[in-house]
């Protein structure tokens, strides 16, 4: 249901984005669609991303924990989601791309030191929270070869913004933390980079594959009955994306 909504949203975006373009570009967006060759430098891409967050989290610090070190940490799990981007060519080799996706919700699993007592060990590897992230990334991509080339490798450098907009503590998480738990994660800004291949099918359509990463850091605060436990998480995500591009 959510994916359907998102697709509808993408359609809506095309329409609204087009309307915006229609005002500033000539000939009109609609007429460009019926033209055999693209008249504007825009490409939209829709596809699938597999996100491996590769999280590295510190041990939790805060009241009523063992240690220090507490031996209580976490790991953010992989997730596949819908990918969407809009790119604008600057010249034959450079484009600016705003990459986003349907915000993925990642399982967060407990990672517990073997030194912790048996009653806590039972939680190891269990899903303690679910976290949804919005991670728009703005890339400047450089494509090798000529515009006419069928296969063009590219590299991109950019800036990533990550916002964890929805956080849910699971029943298991609450059992580990000791009660209903409010989770907050700080926003992250960081460098992003990608490499990939673009295969041109015709003047409008292409298949696009990329492997992207970014520097993402966040500070997590889990508050249970007034007790705030804190963890710093560093991500070195590997995001593999396969998408179809449409140029207009």
């Amino acid at each position, binding site marked *: 249901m959510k994916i359907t909504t998102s697709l509808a*949203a993408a359609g809506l975006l095309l329409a609204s984005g087009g309307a915006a373009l229609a005002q500033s570009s000539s000939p009109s967006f609609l007429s460009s669609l019926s033209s055999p060759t693209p008249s504007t430098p825009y490409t939209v891409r829709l596809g699938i991303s597999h996100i491996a967050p590769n999280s590295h989290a510190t041990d939790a610090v805060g009241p009523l924990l063992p240690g220090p070190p507490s031996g209580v940490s976490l790991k953010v799990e992989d997730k596949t989601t819908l990918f969407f981007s809009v790119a604008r060519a600057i010249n034959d080799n450079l484009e600016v791309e705003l990459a986003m996706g349907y915000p993925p919700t990642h399982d967060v699993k407990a990672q517990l030191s073997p030194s912790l007592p048996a009653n806590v060990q039972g939680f190891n590897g269990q899903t303690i929270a679910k976290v949804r992230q919005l991670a728009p990334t703005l890339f400047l991509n450089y494509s090798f070869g000529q515009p006419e080339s069928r296969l063009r490798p590219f590299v991109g450098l950019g800036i990533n913004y990550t916002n964890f907009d929805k956080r849910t503590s699971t029943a298991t998480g609450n059992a580990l933390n*000791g*009660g209903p738990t409010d989770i907050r994660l700080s926003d992250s800004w960081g460098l992003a980079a990608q490499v990939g291949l673009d295969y041109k099918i015709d003047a409008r359509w292409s298949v696009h594959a990329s492997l992207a990463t970014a520097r993402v850091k966040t500070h997590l605060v889990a508050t249970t009955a007034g007790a705030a436990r804190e963890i710093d998480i560093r991500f070195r995500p590997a995001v593999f994306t396969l998408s179809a591009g449409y140029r207009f």
Partner: protein
Amino acid sequence: MNTLHTLAIGTAVVLLAACGGGGSDSGGSETVDNSGARGSLIYNPPLRVTALTAQQFTDRLNGSTSGAQLLQLAGTPKCGVNFHYIQYGTVGGVNEATKASGALMVPTGTDPACSGARPIVLYAHGTTTDKAYNIADIVNTSNSGASEGSLIAALYAAQGFIVVAPNYAGYDISPLPYHPYLNGDQQSKDMIDSLTAARKALPVLAGVSDSGKLLVTGYSQGGYVALATQRALQAAGQTVTAAAPLSAPSAISLLLDYTTLGAPALGGTVFVPLLSTSWQKQFGNVYSSTSDLYEAQYATGIDTLLPSTTPIATLFSTGKLPQTALFPANAVPGPASPAFAAFYGPNNLLRQSFLTASATDVVTNVCPGNAFPSTAASLSSTTPLACTPSTGFRKAAVANDLRNFVPNKPVFFCGGAQDPTVNFTSTQATAGYFKARGLPAAALTVLDLEAAVSGASDPFAAAKVGFAQSKAATLAAGGATAVVTAYHGTLVPPFCNAAARGFFQQVLAAGG
């Protein structure tokens, strides 16, 4: 670029709108009461620090030598224990609103003794200089409250008692900038407020309910607090099933008169600053300046020194407090016997002028129950506090002395006659007063762990024998000094606490 910008914002807005609401879902409901009212439970349900099954608790105790010894004394856990951390509204020494924290231990498990209506043990902890003391923090063995928490969990919660144990105002998260040490009025309110707050959590936490039976106990400072709480509950017409003040400085004015007359307590250099700060807050007439009591090297800041986040050993080693030298080497009066010589020496804490004033007052305005040494008459006086001290410190001590009520429910006193920290005479004098005022023998039990086993029917034979063995082992390992050092804090507590549980079980079995 402008167009792209518009497009980007459009995309972001549309995608966000498509995804539904963000925010945090805590996965449960929680009530937060920040009213600050006495007995308000700030977070309900309170934080569950950890949950142990009976087997896990047993294994945990077996994991250390001291734990294995405790297991022998307390018996194998019948119940698992959920350890909760409560934060509650209470008051300071002059009824100023504050908050404090503590433990709520709830028995769990399938044994019939671990569910349904259970009695509550309200436990008061002993003196600590550690501001971070948290009796609920049993997962962090480096916390100074962890061992006392384990002791009462093993003795009570694991045997089917609900346990409520406050950390007291001035400790842990409490914002009160001092601790109302041996302020009988405040400390009993703190206990009652922690109990009121904990009772609010019980209906929210599944498994057990309050049977209505209330057993009040505590060790050392906590023994005093337990008896003060019994007095306050009784005065308020609330239920107390029985009380067990252990190694209690309940006759606090007697102990301070003894200190003045040459028999100071081991730990006195810690107790006196805690008392002077607390009672100055309570009455405002203990001193006009800390230098009325304290030597110049200590006077500045002594009123905010304790409790402290700095370990007591560091406070001693850095000269913030002397380890034993309460009075100057040539003090008048000097030590009552050579055994007390260590409390007189260089870099002493208290001034001779304060000692002189106190000593003059002790002999001028004699409190009938405080004779030094004690006499049969002083220990059976019906008016032990019929005296009018002239110094602020003695006035405060008499005002906070607990020999001014008679319990109407059974009381069990316990201690060791050789206790160098809380002189056992305090227990004898308090019990003697209760007896003199008509508390029936059936409702008054005094256990001296040093006493010989009275016969095959001695209900406390095991405690006496166990204590004697423990003491002998300490003597063999470290000599007489080790016994003195370990006596109050290590040797006596397990046996008095275990004996108190036996007493409570007997009272409950008798339908108390």
